[in-house]
């Protein structure tokens, strides 16, 4: 599936080869405060827990409305973990780090 990468704030780090890669797709609808907050939260969590093992694609549905059906997106923001299987979806502004980590099947490194 084609995905247009959008970087609302800063650039997302590229996935580093060798590590267990998480492909994360963040669906947003326009540059709303909530979208920006979600992206910021996601980036922070990834940096803290998945450094070098993730890749983030941001899809703005306002620009690509037909992409919503493919991943069964209803709510925005929605974070979809496409790989590894199974597909996981986390909706909301990702403000609760623990729940995001549970959702991503990542044990919080404590």
């Amino acid at each position, binding site marked *: 599936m084609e995905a247009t990468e959008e970087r609302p704030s800063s650039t997302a780090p590229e996935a580093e080869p060798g590590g267990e890669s998480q492909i994360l797709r963040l*669906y947003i*609808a*326009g540059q709303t405060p*909530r979208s920006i907050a*979600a992206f910021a939260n996601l980036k922070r969590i990834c940096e803290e827990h998945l450094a070098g093992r993730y890749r983030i694609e941001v899809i703005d*549905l*306002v620009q690509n*409305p*037909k992409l*919503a*059906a493919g991943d*069964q*997106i*209803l*709510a*925005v*923001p*929605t974070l979809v973990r496409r790989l590894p299987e*199974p*597909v*996981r*979806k*986390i*909706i*909301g*502004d*990702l*403000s*609760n780090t623990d*729940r*995001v980590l*549970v*959702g991503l099947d990542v044990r919080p490194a404590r």
Partner: protein
Amino acid sequence: MDHPPVAKLAKTRTGIEGFDEITDGGLPTGRPSLVCGGAGCGKTLFAISFLVHGATRFDEPGVFMSFEESTDELAQNVASLGFDLPGLIQNKRIVLDHVRVERSEIEETGDYDLEALFIRLGYAIDSIGARRVVLDTIESLFSGLTNQGILRAELRRLFRWLKDKGVTCVITGERGEGTLTRHGLEEYVSDAVILLDHRVIDEISTRRLRIVKYRGSAHGTNEYPFLIDEDGIAVLPVTSLGLGHAVSSERISTGIARLDTMLAGKGYFRGSTILVSGTAGSGKSSVAAHFMDAACRRGERALVFLFEESPAQVMRNMKSIGIDLQPWVDRGLLEFHAARPSACGLEMHLSRMHRAIDRFGPSVVVLDPVSSLLGVSAAADVHGTLMRLVDFLKSTGITALMTSLSHGKTEVERTDAAISSIVDTWLLLVTLESSGERNRGLYVLKARGMSHSNQIREFLLTDDGVELIDVYAGARGVLTGSARVTQEAEERAAALVDEQELERRQRALARLKTVFDAELAALRAKFETEQADLASGITQHRARVARLKEDKRDVARSRRADAANGDDRPKRTDDARGTVRYGSD
């Protein structure tokens, strides 16, 4: 009215048979309508029919957003109704979007909204220029998402957004406990609410539709039966019929000449309703068969609903009394619809009958027998159903003949009584039991608008159909069958005896006259003899007297005597009978 006329609410036709009639045009254009009901009540079918009809008949493309069934499942489900969803999708008349909400896949963290759903729907609408939208069943979101506060706010926004889009929308909702929908969707959709119901009473299911609310529009408030069959969904607005039907004074034959005579010589009124009631085996079906046969002979169409027998059985039985219905079936003038009363609910029967009548367009309808519908529902329901059917038939000018089986000893039974008030002509077939045999009798119990015979007729089933003959009605009551034959024979014998007696007396009189004549002749002869005797006696006497005078004169002359009148008077004698006789001796 003082205020200026307000533009009438625009309506969008659903294309669902009957529904557009009861709503006076369909669903409110550009607004969402809620269709709710329990599981399996036909919500999805209603919605998809609305959409497919829009795309195929009203040039209004549509979007179907399914929250339950996948697109493939949906296409399969409606293919049986003749809807070609894949074709319509390919031609960009319909867009199908399956929104899958899986609770287990979704984790919620923090604030969100359903903008993605709006975008999806908006994209689908714009891609084909849709005018109609179906959301089936949006309540699934409640099980997929936990934050009810957000969900409710978003739904409210969604419906407003749909209104702004100007699409006519059908939203389906699962019926809740004591509420119209489980999650109170009716709160958001306030323009039109349609409730579908699927009820099972006495193991028989009936589907009903009710318009709970229709803002800004007059609508029927009744429950309307509807049916789902191979032609889709159809609502029957039968209860809205009034009594304003035109009446005909045309008469049509009953098919039995003598019965025509009993009904003022011409038969039934066209467009009237006839009830033929009687006990088992009293010949109801035969009367009905004559009626069908007569209609087909006139070249009219007859539609027959059978509730107890199969068409083949009826045709065989009627052939035995000389009525061959097969040619009419072959020529398409006669059609049978046979269904067990218990096959479906009363409303369903009514609906089916409506459909069949609408399609076949008969001028004559036969229901044989309506009483068996009683096994399905309570008498009041049957009465109501038949009333509506009769109204419908009358409004379309169809002449209907219903047979009714009555039980028990009194022939006029409660089942008949229940429906008799709605019929125009009531023929009662009775079995008259006497001297060890049962015979059939027929009389006209009522015939509105005509002077009918008040006589009972004996009803015979012959090889040439039904024959009505006069019964013996006399001092010993009404006699039929062999009793009638015996009575008639007795009467004939008595008459013969009387005749013979008269003849005897006539002969005696004739003899007497002969005697009289003879005696008269004898007397006359005697009289004439006497008369002749007397006449000749008088002549002789006169001759003798003359001779005597002559002789005396001769003697006197010879004696020269002077005493001329000495002894010249004749000798007088009295006989025993006192008759004065004159004679020479």
